[in-house]
């Protein structure tokens, strides 16, 4: 039984198949990188896993159970957390309140939720922003708040959508360290990232897609040397 399995999923926008028969598996405890050029369907795959969009075809299984067809909040309750590429902070709430709202999912007396929220904020290095209103945060911290909030729901699998985009080199190092720390805490990760340095150094295994279809799967080294991937990223004429 695979820990997480996507089987032949399809999603149309109008006549366009944004995701067209994608299948892959993720093992427990690994970091799976999902790569592909702009508009290739990565975020849409997350939205399908997350239940934000309904599948036109295919099935998604998590821990041996079918989760496709469930509502978004039910999928989160099963243990799948996510971040948004276009961050969605709860703007007029403090960072702490953002995370408390998440922590309530599995921790009921308020004091327990607060405790978990504070620990998670500490874990993600947002402590000095704790009492700031979320909309006042700089972008790097907002991305981090996305991760913090997702972690506070205590997921077993977390979907990270370009959480390192737009960060400076120093922030990038920190982001990589945080992602590794999340993996080391026992959470399985699927990560979408354009920055090759990030994806190559942290992924155990990579799925490359283009035009909504899988074009390569394997270790980072295998995938980057795959001619299909090179073609997708650099065009027809590129020869290494």
């Amino acid at each position, binding site marked *: 039984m695979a820990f997480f399995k996507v089987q032949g999923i399809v999603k149309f926008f109008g006549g366009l198949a944004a995701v067209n028969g994608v299948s892959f598996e993720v093992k427990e405890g690994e970091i799976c990188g999902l790569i592909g050029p702009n508009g290739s369907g990565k975020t849409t795959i997350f939205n399908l896993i997350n239940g*934000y969009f309904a599948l036109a075809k295919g099935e998604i299984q998590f821990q041996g159970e079918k989760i496709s067809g469930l509502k978004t*909040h039910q999928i989160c309750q099963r243990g799948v*957390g996510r971040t948004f590429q276009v961050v969605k902070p*709860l703007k007029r*709430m403090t960072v702490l309140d953002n995370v408390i*709202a998440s922590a309530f*999912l599995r921790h009921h007396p*308020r004091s327990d939720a607060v405790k978990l929220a504070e620990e998670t904020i500490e874990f993600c290095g947002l402590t000095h922003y704790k009492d700031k209103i979320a909309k006042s945060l700089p972008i790097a911290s907002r991305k981090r708040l996305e991760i913090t*909030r*997702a972690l506070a729901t205590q997921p077993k699998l977390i979907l990270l959508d370009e959480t390192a985009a737009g960060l400076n080199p120093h922030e990038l190092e920190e982001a990589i360290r945080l992602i590794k720390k999340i993996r080391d805490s026992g959470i399985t990760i699927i990560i979408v990232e354009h920055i090759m340095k990030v994806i190559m150094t942290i992924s155990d295994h990579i799925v490359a897609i283009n035009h909504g279809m899988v074009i390569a799967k394997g270790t980072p080294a295998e995938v980057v040397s795959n001619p299909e991937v090179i073609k997708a990223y650099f065009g027809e004429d590129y020869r290494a």
Partner: protein
Amino acid sequence: MKRPSGPFLLLGLLLILPLMLRDAYYQHLMILVLMWVAIGSGWNLISGFTGQVLFGAAAFFGFGAYTAALLSSKLGVSAWWGLPLGGILSVAIAFPFGWICFRLRGPYFALATLALNEIFRHVATIWESLTDGMIGILVMQTFISKLPYYYVALAIAILSIVTVDLVMRSRWGYYFVSIREDQDAAESMGIDTLYYKMLSLCISAFLIGIAGALYTNYMGFIDPKVVFSLHEISIMAILVGIVGGVGTIYGPLVGAFIMVAVQEIFRTGGFGVLHFIGQSTGWPFMSGVIKYVSEAHVLSFGILVIVVILFLPNGIVGDWSLIRKSLFKSKKPAV
């Protein structure tokens, strides 16, 4: 932590107020204020805190009012039973309504509540065998003195504020605000947004329904035009919420006070000041002015909303620090 003493002082003041304010007219106004605190708190919970604009508060208000009236006129039961029952039956309406309409986002919910408001008004008008239609229903008032009504209204106002305060400190409160801030984020945080929006609406409907039943008991007469009124009830509820401060616990209290005062100023032509000027000067055009002023109150409501939104977007309670700064700036010593 310091216990806030403000609310207790306020409560003490409200408890002894009618004993100092013996004039029945001002007692009447205070009863209306307290009733509007309940309606405003209900509106604020679903609209201010949960972000789902309730455009038809009169649907629940009128439903509560008719529940109380019909208990008395059809079943011969005391209209006071309408207080709990009006609240509960309003929830019974809010539940299926929310279940259907909360699948719609944004303005659709607001419009659906407006439709509910109008549907109820028409039903109450047309179903004459039950409601006597436009003739309305007369209910024997229990007390001659205003005092008992005042204290019942005060109890309901306190119930409303305490309920909203407790809810907003709990998990539910966090969920309501999360839904207001970003529904997609809330869903992906594991929050069943449909369920919690319904929960919020049900609590609101409960409070507004009770206020409706109070109105029947206090006024002793209702008809569809009054209790299902779009501008006297539904719009007024929005104004009470906005003027006091959207998404603040005490906003509805301040909003209710101001809005009842504003409404009264217009209805009476500045508490009779215009009449007085008219009489003492003998200017013939004053009676015309009085007529226009009392009819212009709807317009003035609109202007008030614009002023509040422009200068105090968070309402009087929400922007209190701003108001205090600009009012007392000169008195503060420079540091």
